């Protein structure tokens, strides 16, 4: 090491990057690398969607409820073709596709999205507890970059998860009506906006918390209602009207709707243009609020 005290002081040769965005990539990359460098965690991230799709998707086998083998009326002897026709009609009119598994698979994309975003929000509580957050706060990195680093890494992670779910769903027999690049890109664009908004929301909720148990409770209170009060698992038109109203404001519904329209060719519960507009509004609003709150809440 060089001698003399001048070497210990800030030098012009440091080539300091003083932009507001500096450090954002470093913080984002830290999170992503943490998530994927441990073999067991990588295994879990792949296996979790398999289990969910396999269990949920196949256990909720609503298709077989209506299939010809499962019901008939004694004495009437309705022809098999009629029954098949009938059940297919019923499924089509209820779910917008004759295959409930495909219907659910799209919902599953948002399901993993919500959970991945939720756990990313939790990680800021750990950073606070282990002192990492305090160290970062002592550096010239922008407060907004601290929050956006969390949000972006969570978006990337949920993207990867969603892609895995889609691949597995296709392997397990999801019938994709419109398997075009545009359809997939469109779906993931919608998922991107949804993840951006959701991560911002969950990170915001965790900003001031030092207690992960409390945080877990809040998250659990939010995530399942968020999913059930949407069209992710069941079509909204069969819900009571008050629940339909909730589903109509729930951004998850719009993300799912884009996926169903683009991948399954189902009739939408709103137009594609409105879906995207709603998701864009949700993402912009929540990430903006997240950045503003980070300035206020991260410095006491």
């Amino acid at each position, binding site marked *: 090491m060089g001698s003399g005290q001048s070497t210990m002081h800030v030098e012009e040769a440091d080539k300091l990057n003083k932009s507001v965005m500096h450090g954002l990539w470093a913080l984002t990359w830290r999170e992503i690398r943490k998530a994927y460098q441990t073999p067991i965690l990588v295994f879990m991230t792949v296996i979790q969607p398999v289990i969910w799709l396999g269990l949920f998707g196949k256990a909720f086998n609503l298709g077989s409820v209506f299939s010809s083998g499962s019901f008939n009326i004694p004495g009437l002897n309705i022809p098999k073709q009629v029954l098949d026709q009938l059940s297919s009609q019923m499924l089509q009119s209820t779910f917008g596709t004759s295959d409930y598994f495909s219907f659910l698979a799209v919902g599953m994309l948002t399901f993993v999205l919500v959970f991945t975003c939720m756990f990313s929000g939790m990680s800021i509580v750990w950073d606070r507890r282990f*002192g990492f957050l305090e160290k970062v706060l002592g550096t010239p990195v922008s407060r907004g970059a601290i929050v956006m680093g969390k949000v972006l890494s969570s978006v990337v992670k949920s993207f990867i998860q969603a892609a895995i779910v889609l691949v597995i769903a296709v392997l397990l027999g999801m019938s994709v009506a419109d398997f075009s690049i545009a359809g997939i890109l469109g779906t993931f664009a919608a998922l991107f906006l949804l993840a951006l908004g959701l991560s911002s929301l969950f990170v915001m909720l965790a900003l001031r918390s030092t207690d992960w148990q409390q945080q877990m409770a809040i998250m659990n209170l939010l995530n399942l209602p968020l999913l059930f009060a949407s069209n992710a698992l069941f079509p909204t038109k069969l819900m009571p009207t008050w629940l339909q109203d909730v589903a109509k404001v729930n951004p998850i519904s719009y993300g799912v709707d884009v996926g169903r329209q683009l991948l399954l060719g189902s009739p939408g519960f709103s137009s594609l243009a409105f879906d995207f507009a709603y998701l864009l509004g949700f993402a912009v609003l929540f990430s903006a609020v997240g950045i503003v709150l980070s300035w206020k809440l991260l410095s006491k």
Partner: protein
Amino acid sequence: MEEQTVEKWKTAPAVLTVEHLTKVFEGKMKAVDDVSFTIREGEILGLLGPNGAGKSTTIKMLTTVLKPTSGRAEIGGYDILKHPTEVRRIVGVVPQEYTADEDMTGHGNIVLCADLYGISRSVSEPRARELLKLVELEASGDRKVSTYSGGMRRRLELACGLINRPRLLFLDEPTLGLDVQTRAAVWEYIKRLKNEYGMTLLMTTHYLEEAGALCDTIAIIDRGKIVKIGAPEELKESLGGDIIEIAVKEADADVEGIVAKVPLVKSVKKMEGYYRIKAEFGEEATPAVIEALRAKGFHVTRISLTKPSMDEVYLEYTGRTLRDAQADSEEVRKQRFTMMRARR
């Protein structure tokens, strides 16, 4: 020769100026109460006090993590409230906790810190190696931090705090929870930083011997106030002599009246179950005190003579020993957590 470099700070310009800094937490007492001091370039100032005295709060305000309720401070010419980003750029912070990311390597952690300062990789990569060498971690730099011992972690934190070549380095309880051997090693690094690199330091500690061994200036802080500030030698001298402690068998004896008349004795103070006497030339004063009491028919049951130490200084200015001090639970929890991790 060395003496000269060590004392050079006394005429150097101030790096840090703190004026009437105060922090009041909602609904609580003042955590930091009207604190003022300066640190000159190359000086090591130690904030000495028990848990909850306001040391960490002071550091958090100066490093711009906490906003002061009132008062001001300037580091390297930048006001901590008006130019927080500039302040963060020129200071280094080594917090009390272990803040390194356990899933990353030691080297990776230092480079990550550099990224947060906006230092380009072409500068930070070689500098990280250099700093690892400085804290003698070059052999373990590519190992994950989760495999490090407490002492290694502490050294890594030190290296991270130096990545931006700070003009002022904050060390919050640098040896908390470390064993005696590792503590001595950390002291060695701190001395090297001062002597070889002319580093300016503000450290907090609740170890008296640490403050005495490392600091040029000690500020004793108690209940948010600086109760005494000065060089360790000055503080000891300010006690005004040696300390004799005696216990007397008779509970009703007018010890204070009798002892005060003994030549060389400067003051007598009744403590719990014993008397604390300040005297010049303690070796001569002690037998005189015993003699004076015996002449009035009282019996001295116990006696001790102490030359002033930092312990005595602390007791004198805060009215209690460091061990007695109570801390708030949040801080105790944090320290336990740090100590638990230090022992791994």
